[in-house]
């Protein structure tokens, strides 16, 4: 398994593997070791990875709907992370604002603590209804040694509401994944359990590790509620600071993203004794399984079967119709981490097979789950870079590529149908009804007439200035 584009990058071989006939990992360097992962990117390899700040501010902190999202640093980090990730919420404030201490050269030379303190106070004064201030640290303010933690403490005393400081400077870790951890841990330590409410929480749950992309949560929370369960907090998606403060009261944690959130469940288990279950909330079988597991915990099995039967009856005709149209299609999924293995089963329910799988920041446990599910001969690649993706799309010609916005236009330039798995095309995709959306988007992507047009002889075709990529089939 060698990539033409990697002839000058032999170190990439250990990040590329096939699933062999024995179900084992056949790594690109021929060693038989498991696929390498969670290591630093080769500089200049055109990685798709982002930074720790992005993971913390964009994925975990951002969805909290009534916190002021304040970046401590120069303007760019705050501008770029503003309002593009569709972690929706029922709030007029959420996603519409970004705050930044706006470090300039003088601040970098003389320190930015004062300006940060003033920024927190001003921001809080401008938006008195906000329930907390989340402060995200960045590369430069970390390097100059600003003590943001101390400033946050001072500010908290002045404004009288929580100021949560995230040490998520972009250079930490090897990918945005580190940011998810920083975000989760910081919120857990600083907010969770800070209030002890009265009440009966014996039938309450938290959803942990679902970030409510395009209102995903709305596709399944009514199902848990239909079991008779109360959802305290969604960690983090359409969630308020006050919900987070009392989430330790829940009787059970439902853990969705098992890359970014398992250890939150573990910490809650340790500190509060809260049990948890790991679930997948995408796909019919998985969603049903999640409901059954939650129901089993609370002894609500009969109700669960009723709910499942009712929902599946509603959507099955659609799924059947789409399966007819999607059957046999080969998919390349490239996602951050767990979604890859979350979706293999879902795609199979639509009649599709995952023949290539890649993650940006998956760890060994993610890759193990992937290897368990993909068919023989499937390709797995860790932290793929642009030329590798291009080579895969050109050589393997998947029927569908599921990835993110940056890769969308590359797929389009190569004539490969694409669905955005990060932020969805027209989501939500989770739960039973979301799966119909997902299937419909896949169907749109695959069957749009433009693909037939592309494959017609491009006439008139202009002379190209320069030679095309010389990808050739290389023995794999």
């Amino acid at each position, binding site marked *: 398994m060698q990539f033409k584009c990697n002839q000058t990058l032999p170190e990439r071989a250990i990040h590329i593997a096939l699933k062999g006939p024995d179900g084992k990992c056949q790594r690109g360097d021929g060693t038989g070791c498991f696929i390498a992962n969670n290591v630093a990117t080769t500089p200049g390899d055109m990685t798709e990875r982002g930074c720790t700040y992005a993971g913390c501010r964009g994925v975990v902190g951002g969805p909290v709907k009534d916190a002021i999202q304040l970046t401590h640093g120069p303007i760019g980090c705050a501008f770029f992370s503003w309002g593009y990730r569709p972690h929706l919420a029922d709030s007029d404030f959420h996603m519409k604002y970004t705050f930044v201490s706006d470090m300039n050269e003088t601040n970098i030379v003389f320190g930015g603590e004062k300006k940060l303190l003033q920024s927190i106070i001003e921001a809080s004064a401008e938006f008195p209804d906000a329930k907390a201030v989340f402060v995200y640290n960045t590369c430069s303010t970390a390097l100059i040694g600003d003590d943001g933690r101390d400033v946050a403490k001072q500010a908290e005393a002045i404004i009288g509401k929580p100021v949560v400081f995230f040490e998520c400077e972009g250079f930490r870790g090897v990918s945005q994944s580190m940011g998810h951890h920083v975000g989760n841990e910081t919120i857990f330590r600083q907010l969770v359990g800070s209030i002890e409410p009265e009440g009966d929480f014996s039938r309450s749950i938290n959803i942990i590790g679902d970030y409510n992309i395009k209102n995903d949560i709305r596709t399944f929370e009514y199902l848990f509620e239909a079991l008779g369960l109360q959802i305290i907090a969604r960690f983090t998606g359409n969630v308020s600071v006050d919900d987070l403060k009392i989430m330790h009261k829940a009787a059970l944690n439902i853990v969705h993203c098992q890359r970014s959130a398992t250890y939150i469940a573990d910490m809650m288990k340790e500190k509060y004794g809260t049990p948890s279950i790991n679930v997948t909330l995408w796909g019919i079988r998985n969603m049903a399984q999640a409901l059954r597991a939650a129901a089993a915990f609370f002894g609500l099995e009969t109700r669960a079967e009723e709910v499942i039967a009712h929902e599946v009856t509603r959507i099955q005709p659609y799924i059947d119709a789409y399966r007819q149209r999607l059957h046999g299609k080969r998919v390349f999924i490239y996602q951050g981490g767990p979604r890859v293995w979350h979706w293999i089963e879902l795609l199979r329910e639509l009649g599709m097979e995952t023949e290539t799988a890649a993650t940006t920041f998956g760890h060994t446990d993610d890759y193990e789950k992937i290897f368990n599910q993909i068919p023989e001969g499937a390709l797995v690649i860790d932290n793929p870079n642009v030329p590798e993706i291009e080579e895969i799309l050109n050589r393997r010609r998947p029927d569908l590529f599921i990835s993110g916005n940056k890769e969308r236009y590359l797929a389009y330039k190569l004539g490969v149908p694409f669905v955005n798995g990060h932020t969805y095309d027209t989501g939500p995709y989770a739960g039973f009804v979301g799966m*119909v959306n997902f299937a*419909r988007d896949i169907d*749109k992507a695959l069957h749009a007439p*433009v693909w037939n047009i592309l494959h017609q002889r491009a006439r008139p075709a202009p002379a190209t200035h320069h030679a095309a990529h010389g990808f050739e089939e290389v023995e794999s």
Partner: protein
Amino acid sequence: MTSCLTMQDRAVAINPTRSCAPIGAMLANYGIHGAITINHGSQGCATYPRHQMARHFREPVEVATTSLTEKTTVYGGKQNLLAALKNIWERFHPTMIMVCSTCLSETIGDDIPGIIDEFLDKRPEVTIPILSVKTPSYIGNHTTGFDNFLKEIALNLPDRRKKKGETNGKINIIPGWVNPGDIRELKHMLREMGLHGLWITDYSETLDGGYYHPRPHFPRGGTTVEELRNSSKSLATIALQRHIGGEAAHIYERRYNVPAHVLTMPIGLRNTDAFVNTLVEITDHTIPESLGVERARLLDALVDTHMYTTGLRVALYGDPDMLEGLVGLIAEMGMIPAHILTAADNRSWGERMVELTEELEVESEIILKGDLHELHKRIKQRPVDLLMGHSKGKFIAEAENIPLVRVGFPVEDRFGYHRRSIVGYNGATALVDEITNMIFERRATAIVSNTLLETGLERPTDIPITLRNGAAHHP
């Protein structure tokens, strides 16, 4: 995938999509430099179309009338027409006069060609062509007037004295009923190909003119009468609307041996390719890189937008030629032209549209002799996501809260649409952009990460499943 053809069955027309013949002849005549129209009828037959054209083009529109009154209904309109010819000639010295008839003059039976001959006999110094065109409102519609005028041009103006093999090296292009911006786009394409068009006719500047001081005696631009006389020596004629100019092209072929190419209006990729390929076929010129880039950019736009457009249901209304062209682009965008309504009573066109839509794998209902009230009722029965047509559809758009993509004539409630183009690769790209933005504006108040944000959670029963390339299927 089957389309069907239906015909509206009602005596009364309610909110028609069409107007009447004289305006078509007047519009076409505006494409000839220095030509003046005399409308032989009631004053309203000139004034109403002038109003309508001014609202669309936002330009002064000047047309003469013979101001027929009660008396002339008894004694005939001859004296009025003679007086009008005299006054127009003496006062303006136009390069050509076109006399179009009306319900009134046709019904009283004025022999317009005879009256013109009488005028010319008396005034030998008048050497300009004076054409007459039959345009009673009760035959056909506004397109009929345009088409009849083109036939008169083809029959009367071109020089029949042509030596064997003599050529002006040009290509006659009959764009049909389009906008000034469309003609400019077509000119751009010919220029890129190194070709010279002879435009029959060209109102790209006369009806989208600039501010000049002093104001020219006649609006700048337009094809000259000399060019039209010379049009019998062109390499070929390309008519870009079958029903407006198609027959004129055949007249060129029959009478002057100029080969005719009658094409679908070049809207969308396939239809524009056909136009470009015809130019190549006629001239052996190669397709320049610049057009290839424009084509590639259209493809790119189609790819980039297909997730927003695939499966959307569109209602189209207007004139047959534009509808036939538009359906191409609509299908290329993955949309379903669910209702296609025209006022024309043209069964053969309807049958061709059934075939065309089936070939394009979309399921359409084609409605002949239809009006906008009919369309509104059908949309209420089978809803659509988008309307495409002229401004008069705004009442449906407002009532049903459906975005209206304004194309055709008239667009009187927006500004500058006459400057836009929907033909050629660039015109199609612009239309793809506009349609996509309309969808963005209406269906999603917030657009995040380039993907559409549906405002509510859709329940499965609201979700039609897109079959093949479009038709909706509720299991």
